[in-house]
């Protein structure tokens, strides 16, 4: 009989890392194509449609980059917390807090102020709002050892309800025929876009800069090193004199803040109003987990990966109209990719050997 045996191995090489990642994504796509075929949908034409719509035209590519912005911002933050082995599943809610704050500034607090004042403040306070939302699970974990996975998750739904409360209640626009949306932001609160596209380039620039900053933070600073040690073994980190409170707070606040920036970008760059929460967050906060994972927790790699995933979102819209499939099919792709990625994680740690017994 042949048995499968797992043998622990040292850090796998960069090349075998890349091969494992590509193979797991391909495996996910292969499984999805089987599901498509079983459902009577031609997998080849749908994949072609997804690829062509997302990457083959400049219009599609621009749309893909627009979608990649929030994915990148959330994903970059997650590479940092995940490195510290802290499970922030709450980017979705932290993003929405950024959106709420931007809306508050644009429509109420700083209504009528010029863009030069308004836009920087939207980003600064949006960052702080996302960070504040992440502060709740962070302080609970650091002080009382409360499981951050559940708290961040639960806070996503609280944020959802909060947005719903605002758009159905006090912030509902008077001139919107009773739709649950706020009125449109004044033009001074609109982020500039690259002409002919929806790419709100201030947010894109922030994403690129934060990738570089988080990379430097992780590789060149003491706190980055401490976060890594804490992630490998929190007990050992404590014995080594690493302040766990500091690690948890800093990583969580940065990650929440970056998600908050993404939320500002979505409302001020694209929607120009607060609307139904799912239409704003679109699951970016959850998909960002795939970004971080596929980037092997490298914030620089999060940029190309979020463009890939952004393309999947765009492809989802396109097969919705051309093949009449529900947009939620994107969730299935995301889920399958995430599954094969977690399943393949074992290959990074163990060598698989077949032994005869």
């Amino acid at each position, binding site marked *: 009989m042949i048995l499968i045996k797992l043998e622990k191995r040292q850090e796998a090489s960069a090349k075998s890392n890349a091969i494992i990642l590509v193979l797991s994504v391909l495996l996910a796509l292969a499984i999805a194509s089987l*599901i498509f075929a079983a459902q009577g949908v031609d997998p080849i034409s749908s994949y072609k449609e997804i690829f062509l719509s997302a990457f083959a035209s400049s219009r599609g590519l621009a749309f893909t980059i627009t979608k990649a912005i929030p994915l990148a911002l959330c994903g970059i933050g997650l590479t940092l917390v995940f490195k510290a082995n802290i499970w922030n599943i709450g980017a979705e809610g932290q993003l929405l807090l950024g959106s709420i704050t931007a809306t508050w500034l644009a429509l109420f607090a700083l209504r009528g102020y010029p863009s030069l004042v308004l836009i920087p403040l939207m980003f600064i306070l949006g960052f702080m709002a996302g960070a504040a939302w992440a502060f709740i699970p962070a302080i609970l974990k650091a002080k009382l050892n409360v499981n951050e996975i559940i*708290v961040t998750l639960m806070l996503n739904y*609280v944020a959802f309800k909060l947005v719903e409360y605002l758009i159905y209640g006090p912030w509902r626009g008077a001139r919107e025929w009773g739709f649950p949306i706020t009125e449109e932001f004044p033009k001074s609160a609109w982020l500039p876009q690259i002409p002919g596209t929806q790419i709100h380039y201030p947010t894109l620039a922030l994403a690129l800069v934060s990738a570089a900053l988080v990379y430097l933070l992780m590789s060149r600073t003491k706190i980055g090193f401490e976060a890594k040690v804490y992630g490998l073994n929190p007990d050992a980190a404590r014995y080594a004199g690493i302040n766990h409170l500091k690690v948890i707070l800093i990583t969580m606040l940065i990650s929440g803040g970056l998600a908050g920036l993404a939320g500002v970008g979505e409302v001020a760059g694209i929607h120009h109003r607060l609307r139904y929460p799912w239409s704003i967050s679109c699951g970016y906060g959850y998909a960002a987990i795939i970004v971080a994972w596929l980037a092997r927790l490298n914030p620089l790699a999060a940029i190309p990966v979020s463009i890939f995933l952004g393309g999947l979102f765009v492809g989802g819209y396109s097969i919705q109209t051309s093949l009449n499939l529900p947009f939620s099919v994107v*969730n299935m792709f995301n889920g399958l990719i*995430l*599954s094969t990625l977690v399943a393949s*994680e074992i290959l990074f740690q163990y060598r698989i050997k077949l032994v005869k017994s």
Partner: protein
Amino acid sequence: METAIALLRTAISAGTPLLLATIGEIFAERSGVLNLGVEGMMIMGAVSGFVVTMFTGSPLLGIAAALMAGGLLALLHAFISISLRGNQVVSGLALTMIGLGLSALIGRGFVGIPLKAKLSSLSIPLLSDIPVIGEILFKQDPIVYFSYALTIASWITLYKTKLGVAIRAVGENPGAADAMGVNVYLMRYACVIFGGMLAGLAGAYLSIVYIPAWVEGMTAGRGWIAVALVIFALWDPLRAMLGAYLFGGLEAAQYTLQAIGINPCILGMFPYLATIAVLTLSASETMRKKIGAPSALCKPYIREERTI
């Protein structure tokens, strides 16, 4: 009085899918496996239950299909998290994404079609004649009665039987359980799959009995409430029952409460905030020991590396 009874009766049927999924997740977590895929397994149960019932005209076959769908999705999670030692959080989230997407794909031709074959409610003779209580508890449908029995049976199994001791041991200290001769992997697989089947049943309850129709995304976060309820109930089936009816009652009463000025969106935050509160209050090491929160939750068991 009449309206109060009607409201409480609705609270129970609104709480039933929560209760079923929560008890399933209690078993998975008691054995040491966190499954954040409840929402996904539930909605796969909803779509397969609906489609099979529609084609066969038999709600029973629909329920069987839902059990299978939930169980199969759970099997994927079990394989990844138990055999491949993958991250349970990520694998569970992936399960939810797969469930939401796949159910939308499967159900795309069935949106809004009413179901002819229904599971009608059934008054239990004698018991339903008890004033008030009988009206509320015993004029329900068969799945509700099943959930009563399931709750009691689960409590007895977990706390009063050898099997329950084994399940809890596996979630508490798998190394020690293994040394005592318990098959850790088998136990975890069984609990996770059982949990998935119950989540599937919860979904079928929504699409065959409670609503009854198929709408994309119809579980509407109930799976997450179940994940919350497990903690709210401190991993205890009886407390899960109370919690499920409380949260179900909030859902049923939201329009009535709106009339007296309570905002349904703010009310909707309650299950999530209450869970954070319970989690915080029970977080200390001494409280955890007292409550019996499974210590090995989220930790894969690697037999070759056990210390006992």
